[in-house]
């Protein structure tokens, strides 16, 4: 996977987030403050612009640029968290012009670690971690099993989607939704839902 793959991925994320903006906001309205869709749309629109303004040379540079842009433009909880996730991925990939599936897996693991270090959420807290962690595991497993890239990525995307759905019955222990106590149960976590969209876009990028 070269820089073009990652740029395509990020552009795909920008477009899917735009399409799903209202959906994400409505998820956030139910148990948060109704801004998650607007936040990510603002952020990834800026990412798309940044990629166009200063085209990156390497996968790592593309991801660090995306992460930094998110931190600088999103705000809220998701800005620093997603920003850190992309920056950690990028930093892990370093200057390499090409990225193997195994390297992608390691990078995604670093993203998860970054999110958890910053936000201190564990699986089951009803956050983006609930979508990201299973995706990381699925990708690592697929690499281990020697799966083809497309299949491995599909497995990660599937796991993220499944993880997001699984947040529905949970009671939140992190972020705004935690203020609702038991009333947070019965709603999908908006951040987990957006993580599933982001990883789903990886699949689309791979198939281009």
């Amino acid at each position, binding site marked *: 996977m070269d820089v073009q793959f990652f740029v395509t991925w990020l552009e795909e994320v920008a477009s899917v987030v735009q399409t799903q903006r209202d959906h994400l*906001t*409505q998820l956030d*309205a*139910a*148990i*948060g*403050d*109704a*801004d998650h*869709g*607007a*936040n990510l749309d*603002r952020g990834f629109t800026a990412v798309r612009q940044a990629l166009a303004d200063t085209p990156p040379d390497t996968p790592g540079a593309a991801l660090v640029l995306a992460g930094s842009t998110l*931190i*600088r*433009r*999103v*705000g*809220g*909880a*998701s*800005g*620093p*968290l997603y920003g850190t996730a992309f920056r950690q991925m990028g930093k892990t990939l370093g200057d390499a012009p090409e990225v193997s599936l195994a390297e992608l897996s390691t990078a995604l693991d670093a993203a998860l670690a970054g999110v958890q270090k*910053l*936000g201190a959420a564990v699986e089951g807290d009803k956050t983006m971690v609930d979508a990201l962690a299973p995706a990381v595991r699925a990708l690592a497993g697929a690499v281990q099993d020697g799966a083809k890239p497309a299949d491995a990525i599909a497995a990660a995307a599937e796991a993220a989607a499944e993880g997001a759905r699984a947040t529905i019955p949970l*009671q939140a*222990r*992190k*972020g*705004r939704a*935690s*203020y*609702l*106590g038991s*009333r947070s149960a019965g709603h999908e976590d908006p951040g987990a839902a957006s993580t599933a969209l982001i990883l789903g876009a990886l699949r689309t990028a791979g198939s281009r």
Partner: protein
Amino acid sequence: MKKLINNVDSVVTDALTGLAAAHPALRVDVENKIVFRAAGPRPGKVGLVSGGGSGHEPLHGGFVGYGMLDAACPGEVFTSPVPDQMIEATKGVDGGAGVLHIVKNYTGDVLNFEMAAELCGDEGVEVVSVLVNDDVAVRDSLYTAGRRGTGATLFVEKIAGALAETGAPLGEVARVAREVNERSRSFGVALSACTVPAAGKPTFELGESEIELGIGIHGEPGRTRAAHGPARELVRVAMDAIHEDLPLSGEVLVLVNGMGGTPLLELYIAFAEVAAYLREKGASPARVLVGNYVTSLDMQGFSVTTCALTEELTRLWDAPVETPALRWGR
């Protein structure tokens, strides 16, 4: 949704343009969304920076000025600002004595202010952060993101701002800010939801005789839904929650705060009940604010914030302040 706006995406910058035009004592960087005192930093004075999502006006931009904040960073509606804003604001108000960040306890605000503080430190500006978490509706436990920062933010900004104006060092200013927070408690009640412009519809639906107890300031539902009742009963629920957490006694600083859509007439009705409750507990409302100060867009409802006064806090509260939304003594 019917709002007095030009465009969903330009709500915050349009409002900042108006703020700048209305208050010559402010310098507003509309593009970077930072509200400064026009006079700039005073050498040797600790700078005070706060910020958070927009939609809580006059908090924070309306509290920039002599005796209170040096700068405010408004984010998008209900979205905490980004580190860039805070870094720019922090550097812009540093008079060499360091800068206090007043941060309401929300994951987003905390994370973004943390990143900013770290980067400011790297650039040689001393930053101390104080967390405001006064809302007793949320239990501070492993199962939550901790208590929310609400009405006490105003108290912290006013009192720490007054101390900073005397030339007190950063450590002292932070100490008094923390003390105010520790002595403050809040509880909020919603009679209606609010409508975030970008969402276009109310964040929740309430029946004609339903209310939400234990709400924050972001349009989120509260801890429980309950039947609507007379002001007397709603105030009692709020005051009981506060009193249970930190028994009320002695001289109390009280804010009866409107959520944005509740008329002042009704807020005074609520304050009458708050005053009666305090007397019942042997406490007295020694200093009082009634009005819309820490709002939640167009939400109907109110919150009560109390702060157990000390001599020092009373003196600092009474000290002159000159901001768009709070002014006395000059």
